[in-house]
């Protein structure tokens, strides 16, 4: 493993991503957790650039760092959060068991991937990346692409119906 610019870029981006994730677990205020996760999302976009997926990096910044974060912030601001909830009894034991389970899962998967190495095949993903995605999307994956629009339409209409205030019933309750 030689020390090159790509290596340094990967290490710094991975460090920021993992730090964002750890902060997500450790911070106490909900808003701070979401802001910590923005760092993770942006550095994952940088990782995509390293993997010659420039279009996907831009999409990641737009969808995750932009739209999903803002929607989460709206969800937080529309609900009330008590500053700090008291730890229930047996919470520590449960957390410890879950931590052991997750670490065991991580170790099992890491055992499978740590010496994984494929023969490097020269590829042309980095030239005209967006054009390649467009050609592939509209030649091989045209039916899933159209179905995605149906999914988005159904999900957004369903979200509006679920979150809408019921005027007449609301008047009865309050």
């Amino acid at each position: 493993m030689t020390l090159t610019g790509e290596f340094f870029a990967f290490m710094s981006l991975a460090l920021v991503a993992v730090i964002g994730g750890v902060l997500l677990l450790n911070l106490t205020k909900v808003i701070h957790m979401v802001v910590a996760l923005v760092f993770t999302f942006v550095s994952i976009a940088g990782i995509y650039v390293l993997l010659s997926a420039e279009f996907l990096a831009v999409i990641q910044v737009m969808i995750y760092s932009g739209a999903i974060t803002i929607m989460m912030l709206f969800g937080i601001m529309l609900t009330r959060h008590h500053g700090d909830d008291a730890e229930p009894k047996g919470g520590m034991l449960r957390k410890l068991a879950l931590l052991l389970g997750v670490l065991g899962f991580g170790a099992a998967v890491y055992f499978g991937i740590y010496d994984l190495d494929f023969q490097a095949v020269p590829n042309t993903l980095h030239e005209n990346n967006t054009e390649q995605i467009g050609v592939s999307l509209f030649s091989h994956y045209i039916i899933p692409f159209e179905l995605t629009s149906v999914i988005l339409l159904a999900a957004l209409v369903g979200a509006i119906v679920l979150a809408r205030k019921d005027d007449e019933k609301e008047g009865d309750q309050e």
Partner: protein
Amino acid sequence: MSSVPVSAYLALALILFCIGLYGALTKKNTVIVLISIELMLNAVNINLVTFSKYGVNPSITGQVFALFSIAVAAAEVAVGLAILISLYRNRRTVNIDEMNQLKN
């Protein structure tokens, strides 16, 4: 050809997935659980893009799959937050332990 081995990318995705899994299982706040699930989806997308470049058969297909997965994740967040707001309107709580209406 590349100075970063493929296992490094996979290990990064594994670490992020484990963080998301732990957060989704332990956190009490429903918004944070949703965010942890997003983190897990992101880790899976890193895997897809990594194999699309360094896999046995590199092609653009992995990136297209990651695009579809991002679109579905966005729809999932919209529906999840709508359910959360609807639940909050009925129960006045976002604590995941108190959302047990199906038990009775």
